[in-house]
């Protein structure tokens, strides 16, 4: 579904990302991990066509995102890290407004159903400014689903919210993946990585130190003489250790 090859991004002559190679299959939840400033959000913004790559290629469902940007955009649902909503408007007004931004228009009923699907019951006429952080995050996610995209790019969609909301959002993400949507997910939450992600990629200083499943990560750590008791320790070692002397895996 997503093929990234030799992707690079420079900002003010400084390399921020790459070279990055990655392949993500349909229905996969790919977790992007890494310390702050590793290049996770930069990679996601390139995939979302928000920023353009300095070099390399990204092919989504057979379409080059640089050359066929307009054709690619309907495939993508992007959830930025900041809540992209109008606070002074109601949930309904926000949904209707964002509904105007897509090619395939949705009826008010369809939009309301979408809000129900993200567990925003009874909040249709509520002002966004009055919603809790968790509800705002749910609405933020609902907006990205308006045009029923095949690829979801989620930049820390559950950051700073209550456990209940986090659980509900994670359930929805799993359901979306089961429905065949391809998801790239940035998170710092170890539980989300272990429970949600089918594969992970660890970015550091703009390059992937590791990509694969958690089991593969455990095996790789053993090769380097580390032993991990559980998945949490595997992730901890992956993030902690400096693999820059080693050939990154793709």
């Amino acid at each position: 579904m997503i093929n990234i090859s030799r992707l690079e991004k420079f900002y003010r002559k400084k390399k921020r990302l790459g070279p990055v190679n990655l392949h993500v299959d349909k229905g996969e939840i790919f977790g992007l991990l890494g310390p702050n400033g590793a290049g996770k959000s930069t990679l996601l913004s390139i995939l979302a066509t928000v920023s353009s790559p300095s070099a390399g290629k990204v092919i989504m469902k057979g379409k080059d995102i640089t050359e066929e940007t307009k054709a690619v955009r309907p495939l993508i649902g992007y959830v930025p890290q900041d809540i992209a909503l109008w606070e002074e408007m109601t949930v309904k007004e926000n949904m209707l407004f964002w509904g105007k931004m897509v090619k395939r228009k949705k009826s008010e009923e369809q939009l309301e159903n979408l809000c129900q699907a993200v567990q925003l019951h009874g909040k249709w006429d509520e002002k966004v400014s009055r919603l809790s952080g968790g509800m705002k995050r749910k609405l933020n996610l609902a907006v990205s689903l308006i045009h029923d995209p095949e690829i979801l790019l989620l930049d820390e969609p559950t950051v700073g919210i209550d456990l209940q909301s986090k659980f509900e959002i994670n359930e929805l993400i799993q359901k979306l993946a089961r429905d065949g949507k391809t998801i790239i997910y940035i998170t710092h939450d170890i539980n989300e990585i272990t429970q949600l992600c089918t594969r992970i990629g660890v970015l550091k200083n703009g390059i992937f130190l590791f990509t694969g499943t958690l089991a593969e990560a455990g095996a790789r750590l053993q090769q380097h003489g580390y032993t991990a008791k559980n998945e949490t320790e595997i992730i901890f070692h992956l993030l902690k250790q400096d693999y820059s002397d080693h050939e990154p895996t793709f």
Partner: protein
Amino acid sequence: MGIYYEKWKQLMRKPVTWLLFLMPIAASVGFGMLFTKQQTELTIPIVIVDEDQSSTSDAVIQGLKSQTGLTVKEMPASAAKKQLLQGEVDSVFIIKKHFQTELRKGKRDGLIELWTSPSSVAAGIVREIAASEIIKQTSAAKAANKVVSLYKQKYEDQGERSEIWQQAYDYTMDQWQPEPLMTIQYKIGSDKRQDTNKEKATLLFSPYLGLWSFFTMLSCFIFSDWAVKERWTIFPRIRASSIGLPAYLSQCAAAHLIIQLIQAGFAFVVFRYLNVINGGIVVFSVMAVFVLFSTVIGLLLAVFHTHAGPFYLTALSTALLFALFGGSFFPAGELFSFIQKLSEMFPQTALAAAENKDRLTDPLVWESVFAMAAVVLISWPLIVWKAGREYD
């Protein structure tokens, strides 16, 4: 057009929209009335010392008293000097002895002595007013002398000469009504470039329109803060959407523009109702172009800012700069010649020209309108480029 409509609805629900809608009209009418009232109440105090005590000197004093911009007091020279030194009066005019006799001989020079203090700001203006009064008197006296002389040549020793002189004098004085020296009209429709430039120097705003231009520009600038506030939240998602950022920017800008255009129309109707501006549909057309210009410049300022605080500061400074050099508050061009040249480049020139000429085909009007349109056309791609560049 869907986004435009949604944005419009969103704006209409915000109290700040109504505040920014009403601000230019309320502020320009309020401050305009205050300004006009002050202008009519503002007079220059002068003192006349009448050493001649003749009917002609009295006529000059009455002429000066009839001037709306002056407060004329009569007193002896010693008292006048004291008042001048205390700064209570701007200048002292001493009508010398034999003023009438000399005037009737056709002499003008040295008949009135002028005392001013270094702090006098209006001596030049007062001197002009006094001089015009003297010119009126001497012209009439000269004309009367001529009539008497001709009469003498033709009808020797018939009738009373002083009576003839007075009749000729009165007739000539009547010819000054309504004071032609004070009401020199601009030459309209000149083809010569040099003449056009001369006209520009004398273009004056109605204070209402001048103030409206400042408050409208400020309102349009503040109204553009959405582009700063949405930059890091809404814009990235818009950029990733099917519609794209340029379409969103243009439709949102259009919604803001329409509100300000309605404001301009409303202001125009109010000004016409109060009868405080000259001109008709041409003035409104230029007001509309001015709103377009202000909206686009506001958006341009907004996309070059990342935080609302510094943006508001820049918006206020820029609006003030435009108002000061463009002549919104006072005719800036009359201060220094280089400011005059500079002020001609500001968009307020179009408003002043439209109010004075009321013809869209007048070079002064269409050149300024064209300049504003050109700035809008150049600025728009820059706005789109800058708004999108942030994420690259």
